[in-house]
Structures are given as C-alpha cells and as structure tokens.
C-alpha cells in the first residue's frame, strides 16, 4: 500500500473566486482513515482555511455529506483505501448552492421541511397522565424505516429532478411526511395531502430511484414517494366520489 494519497478538493471562496477550482493535497493513506480524516489532516496540518462540516464521525449527525469521486457519500463512512490509488475527487454536494469550499447551503430543505408538518398531528390532545399511547411493534414497523432519515441530503444531490427543478419538495421531505402519515398515532394525513399533491410535491418525481441508492440509512425515499402517489391518487378519486366527505 502506498503511504499517501491525493485528495483533489474543491475550493471556492466567494470573496475571491468566480467559480470553484480544485486543489490537490497529499494525505497519509491509512487503513482506517476515511475521507473526512483526510480533510481533517489537511485542515490541521496543511491548510487551515479549508472549510467543511462534520461532527459525529459515526454516520449519525448527517453533516459530512460530499461528492466523493462523483457520488454523494458520508465522508465519515468512506474509506480512503476503497478509493486508492487516487486522486480522490472531493466536491461539495451536487444540486446545492456552494457557500464555500465543501460547504453547501441546505436552507432550501429546512424551509421545505415544515411544509409537510413533520410532527404528530392529532384531533384530540392526550393528557400526559393517561400514559403512553399504545403502538404494537407491527405498527411501529410500518413507519420505522422512514424515521431513520438523518437529513444528510445525499438523496437530494443524487436526484436529477431536484437538480433541474429546485422547487421539487424532494425525497427526504416526502419520506418524512410518510413517516408521520403511517404512524398509528397521527391524524394529519389530510393536512399533508394538500402539500404533497401539489405539482411540486410527489408528482415531480419520475422514479429515478437514485435517492434510495444514495441513502446511507436505508430510508428508501423512492419507495415512500411512489407509495404516496398511489395514496394521493386514491384520495383524489375519493374526493370526487364523496365531495366534502372522506376520512
């Protein structure tokens, strides 16, 4: 094994650069080093001005997503040795505005998220004194997968539809809407329907499926969206059959 590897890192500083450029750094190639360790090495030893986000280094905080050799990935879960001999291209997540270097602006997602009411909506309020609501393991399993989303945005950067049309509400937001729709404690499906059947909602998705391929947490947003299309279609028919009625 060679003892070093080149990281070809995107640099962009809006004050001086018109557009991003690539810069090469040599970092040690160690068996248990991930791309993020390489970046930390650069920041600590070679160039303190390199900017990127990270925190947990265990794939749960969702902050370290970048394009590694053209594919969206969590850099804390991408080993250097798997990309040897390099050079490894490390770029900011695709489909997002680049704030600086490897930092992208995900404000768009945070603006969209509340639109799908990602919280328990109930017709009644249960007092705490009544204890927990019952939910069987099977009912839990109905939505559990969709609750695993760490908001890492890899799916957005993999989805060409989002890249072409930033108004598309996007895979993770829809998966989170489904997470609550399918929760036995929730009564908010009708409220979310209005948002999701908007043309910027589920219909924009053409089932490219890359969101699911990219997702590091097996959320399967593509499946969530297609399932929701069926639900939305059924609800629409229902609203014609029994205008004003429905669940």
């Amino acid at each position, binding site marked *: 094994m060679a003892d070093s590897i080149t990281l070809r890192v995107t640099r962009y500083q809006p004050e001086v650069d018109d557009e991003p450029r690539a810069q090469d750094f040599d970092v040690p190639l160690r068996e248990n080093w991930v791309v993020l360790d390489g970046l930390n090495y650069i920041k600590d030893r070679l160039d303190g001005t390199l900017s990127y986000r990270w925190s947990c280094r265990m794939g749960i905080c969702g902050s370290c997503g970048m394009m590694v050799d053209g594919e969206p990935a969590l850099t804390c879960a991408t080993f250097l040795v798997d990309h040897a001999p390099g050079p490894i291209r490390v770029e900011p997540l695709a489909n997002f505005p680049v704030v600086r270097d490897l930092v992208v602006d995900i404000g768009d997602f945070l603006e969209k998220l509340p639109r799908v009411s990602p919280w328990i909506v109930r017709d009644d309020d249960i007092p705490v004194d009544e204890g927990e609501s019952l939910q069987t393991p099977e009912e839990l399993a109905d939505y559990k997968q969709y609750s695993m989303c760490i908001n890492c945005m890899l799916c957005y950067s993999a989805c*060409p539809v989002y890249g*072409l*049309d930033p108004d598309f509400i996007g895979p993770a937001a829809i998966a989170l809407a489904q997470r609550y729709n399918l929760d036995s404690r929730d009564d908010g499906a009708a409220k979310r329907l209005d948002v999701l059947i908007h*043309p910027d909602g589920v219909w924009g998705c053409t089932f490219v499926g890359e969101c699911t391929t990219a997702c590091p947490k097996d959320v399967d947003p593509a499946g969530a969206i297609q399932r929701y299309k069926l639900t*939305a279609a059924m*609800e*629409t*028919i229902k609203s014609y059959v029994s205008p004003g009625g429905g669940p």
Partner: protein
Amino acid sequence: MPNREVEPFAWMAFSAGGVAAAMFAPILLFLFGLALPLGWVSPDHAGLLDALGHPLTRLALLGVCAAALFHFAHRFRYTLYDGLQLARFGTVITAGCYGLAVLGSAAAAYILLLVL
C-alpha cells in the same frame, strides 16, 4: 381538496398503461412486427380477422392501446422536462403529449370499433 387536479389522473393512466405495456406490448409487437411479417407463423387471414374481430379482443386491444398511449404521454412529457430541460415549455409539452394520447385513443376506437 384535490379537486381540479389532473396530475393524479394522469399518473393513474400512466400506471395503468405501464402495466398494460409491460404485460401485452412485447408479445404483441413480437407477433405483429416480427413473427407475422417474417412468416414464422402464418395464420390465414380469415382466422386472424376472426380472432381480432371478437368483441372482447377489440375491447381489450382498445384498453391496452389507450392506456399505453397515456403511459407514453406522461412519461415522454417528463422526459422532455428533465432530459432536455424543457420544463419552461411545460404547457405546450403537456398539451402536445396528452393531446396526442387523446387523438391516438380516438383513432384506436375508430379502427377497433368501427372499421374492424
């Protein structure tokens, strides 16, 4: 409520057409496009007319053709949007694609129900 939304219906037609095309299209095109012209099978004309002319066959064919056309319209519309980045001509494309499907279905109905 979702009234006035066409998208759900377009999508349902697309899905129905997707199933129809997946199930029927390969074998039909294989028969009509390859097997008959190349003489791999050669049923006589009368038999063929008989088989196709049966009311149930006509209806089934009409269903498959119309659904498949809407499948085409919906998918092709989004292909133009995404593949060629033409979403800004959305209205024209939408009208063109679904318009074709409607005309095609009418033609199919004419041929299958009146001519045949």
